[in-house]
């Protein structure tokens, strides 16, 4: 923190000398305490908007985290950055400047600091822009916990960027750039080169106001880097990524969007002794997505998509080589059925396959996923509406090896959530929601098993909420929820039958208030209480030796309760200017652990001047 104090003090002092200029600067400070972790964030941004040829800017950020540990020292981590830039425009096309930046990372006894300072120039010639910078880079590495000596490196750094935006076609934007970086540090030299090409063209104007017209966009990036680690290992990396996006109208009034991404990275590391190849990885991925959409009668929007992806990790024929390939087909329909009815439905099905080309099939597997989700809203009157949501998810995993096919399984989840909202009075809103959720998990080759591997979990919940707007400044909220849950093994007897092994009931109450004493200020106290009880079901043998029967016993397993009181203060002028304070006190206890009392505090301030 000390390293950043001086520039910050200098910047605040500088503000007084530039008070006659219009400028924009912002400060954001956050503090939060969560369990035993205390986090501070600080952001400062200053960029005076002067009409002079001289311009400068300062950015600073700092993040500090303290984690308190029981039975051990506190753990501290900090990272921060400061950037200072100065530019002077000599002519309309030539400018010179200087820069200073420092990055700091520290954790306990370890500290890494990187500093850069130097001069820069920028000029434009025949539509081509040249940016160059020459400076000094300094790196300090300290590790008090290690016997290794402190490392300090200093050397020259040079960066160059050549960019141009030629006008090739009408209604198009083309951008090209080539960049190079050199850092001459004795132990950790770095070289980097990058080529970037971008082209986008509007193919036509859209006839529908507000929607996008036809367009074509292509991106190509190629990079190469060579660097050395402090351990002596040399790393060479190649990177390539290509993106193609086309969007436009096709016959029958359908809009189409096609997006293709290709990524390729090669990473080689050479050991310092005899320059041997110590590590090799070639990773590549291709993904393509085709979307079609059409609007019917300006009421119903229909969309469909197909997504394909393939990724490969090649360790040069090592057993770790992996291939992943997946395809997904889906769509959605959304629209107004009538003046009072609207509906939404989405569905998708996809298969992802994993291969291990070298190590053999033992971990090869396929994953089939089916997803369906629907929503329906009916408005009876301005005072009453009903909403129905429901969905289904099926996940089928199959192994290609007889070593693992015993694990082939289906995992299915069903959800249904009806909700009613009633506005009996302009000041009063009542909501009642129910939710039913069930999860079936069964194994393809273990249907007859009664060991409990095939299982069913069921959950039913009820939520009741009340909102009373006492006045423009004060609103009361009250809520009650009840949840019942049970789970147990599934047994196959011509159909699936569940035997409950555990059930749980949860009751929860919450009361809160939102009070606005002033236009931008809101104070919200809140109280919540939750009680949870769970029971275990055991089978007990009764009767004599000749006539034994099984009787189920239900035993209270665990009882848990939680009380929490919190208060929040929010002073909101805009998204960039606000003050937020929150404090909470929580007490919880259960039969299986000791009582716990916790406090939480969060403070957040942001200001743009």
């Amino acid at each position, binding site marked *: 923190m000390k390293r950043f104090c001086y520039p910050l003090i200098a910047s605040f002092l500088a503000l007084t000398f530039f008070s006659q200029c219009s400028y924009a600067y912002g400060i954001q400070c956050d503090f939060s305490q969560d369990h035993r972790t205390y986090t501070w964030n600080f952001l400062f941004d200053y960029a005076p908007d002067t009409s002079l040829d001289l311009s400068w800017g300062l950015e600073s950020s700092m993040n500090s985290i303290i984690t308190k540990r029981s039975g051990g020292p506190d753990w501290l981590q900090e990272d921060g950055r400061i950037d200072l830039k100065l530019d002077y425009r000599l002519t309309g096309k030539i400018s010179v400047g200087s820069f200073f930046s420092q990055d700091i990372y520290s954790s306990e006894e370890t500290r890494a600091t990187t500093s850069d300072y130097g001069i820069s120039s920028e000029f434009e010639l025949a539509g081509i822009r040249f940016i160059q910078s020459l400076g000094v880079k300094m790196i300090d590495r300290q590790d008090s916990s290690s016997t290794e000596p402190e490392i300090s490196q200093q050397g020259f750094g040079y960066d160059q960027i050549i960019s141009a935006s030629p006008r090739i076609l009408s209604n198009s934007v083309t951008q090209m750039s080539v960049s190079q970086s050199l850092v001459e540090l004795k132990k950790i030299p770095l070289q980097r080169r990058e080529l970037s090409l971008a082209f986008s063209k509007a193919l036509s104007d859209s006839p529908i106001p507000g929607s996008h017209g036809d367009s074509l966009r292509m991106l190509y990036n190629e990079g190469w880097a060579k660097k050395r680690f402090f351990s002596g290992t040399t790393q060479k990396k190649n990177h390539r990524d290509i993106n193609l996006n086309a969007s436009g109208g096709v016959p029958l009034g359908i809009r*189409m969007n096609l997006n293709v991404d290709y990524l390729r990275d090669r990473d080689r590391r050479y050991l310092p002794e005899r320059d041997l190849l110590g590590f090799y990885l070639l990773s590549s991925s291709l993904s393509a997505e085709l979307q079609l959409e059409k609007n019917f009668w300006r009421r119903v929007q229909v969309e469909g998509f197909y997504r394909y992806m393939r990724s490969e990790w090649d360790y040069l024929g090592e057993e770790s080589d992996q291939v992943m390939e997946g395809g997904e087909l889906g769509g959605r329909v959304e629209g107004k059925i009538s003046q009072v009815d609207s509906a939404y439905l989405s569905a998708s099905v996809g298969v992802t396959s994993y291969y291990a080309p070298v190590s053999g099939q033992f*971990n090869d597997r396929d994953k089939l996923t089916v997803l369906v989700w629907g929503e329906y809203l009916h408005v009876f009157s301005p005072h009453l509406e009903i909403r129905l949501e429901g969905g289904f998810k099926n996940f089928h995993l199959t192994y290609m090896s007889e070593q693992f096919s015993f694990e082939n399984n289906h995992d299915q989840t069903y959800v249904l959530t009806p909700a009613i909202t009633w506005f009996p009075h302009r000041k009063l809103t009542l909501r009642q929601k129910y939710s039913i959720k069930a*999860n079936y998990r069964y194994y393809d080759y273990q249907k007859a098993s009664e060991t409990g591997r095939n299982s069913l979990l069921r959950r039913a919940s009820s939520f009741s909420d009340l909102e009373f707007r006492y006045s423009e400044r004060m609103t009361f909220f009250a809520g009650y929820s009840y949840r019942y849950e049970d789970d147990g093994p599934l047994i196959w007897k011509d159909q699936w039958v569940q035997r409950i092994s555990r059930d749980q009931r949860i009751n929860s109450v919450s009361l809160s208030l939102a009070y606005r004493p002033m236009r931008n200020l809101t104070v919200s106290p809140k109280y919540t209480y939750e009680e949870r009880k769970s029971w275990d079901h055991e089978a007990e043998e009764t009767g004599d030796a000749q006539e034994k029967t099984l009787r189920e016993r239900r035993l209270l397993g665990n009882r848990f309760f939680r009380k929490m009181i919190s208060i929040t203060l929010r002073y909101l002028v805009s998204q960039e200017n606000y003050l937020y304070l929150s404090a909470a006190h929580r007490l919880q206890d259960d039969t299986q652990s000791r009582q716990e009392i916790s406090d939480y505090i969060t403070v957040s301030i942001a200001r743009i001047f």
Partner: protein
Amino acid sequence: MCFPTKTVKRSCVVRASVWAISLLCLLGCKDPFRTRESPPPATETEGTWKTPSEPDDVIENLLYAYNEMVISNFDRCLCDSFRFSAPEDSVKAVQDNRDELFADWERNVEVSVTANMFTVFRQNTDSVSLVLLFEPVPPLPDDISDTSAVLLRDYELHVFDMKAVPAETTLAKGTATFHLQQTSLSWWCICFWGDIPEVAGGYDWGDFKAQFK
């Protein structure tokens, strides 16, 4: 009589080209309805899995997935928005000029690294093995609300190298912080995993995982 202008002709050519590319893509791509044929099992090896209706079930599933080396079960413990962070190891990586080692460690990286790790250990069962343990009593009580939870677990990860003479055991110790979330059609899953070593500069889970990246 009106003839199509050059602009209209060019636009039609571009559209037709895009249609053709799209159809070619579709024809060459993967069938989303069919999985491969799976052979009947030769052995009855069981992976342990419990429907994650509570946050603690996710941690239990992760523990079993690690010890049994079942990558599909491990994969399902993670949310799509998963991120891994090892702040002290990140600083050590910056120290070594390997800034990118722990950067952007998202779900696909975590699954790929763990799959790589499981493959190495499964293929060399006669020479290496690992055991993961969580302390039965967490350092702090679990913080669980309706849709989010924070669980802390002190862990020990024992890695045995049986080919070394004498046999070696590497121990990673530290505290893992798991942030979990629950959505309507899904159950609990891990969206954030933070790792710090037990002692400053000590060998931790992040150091172990980085070997397989």
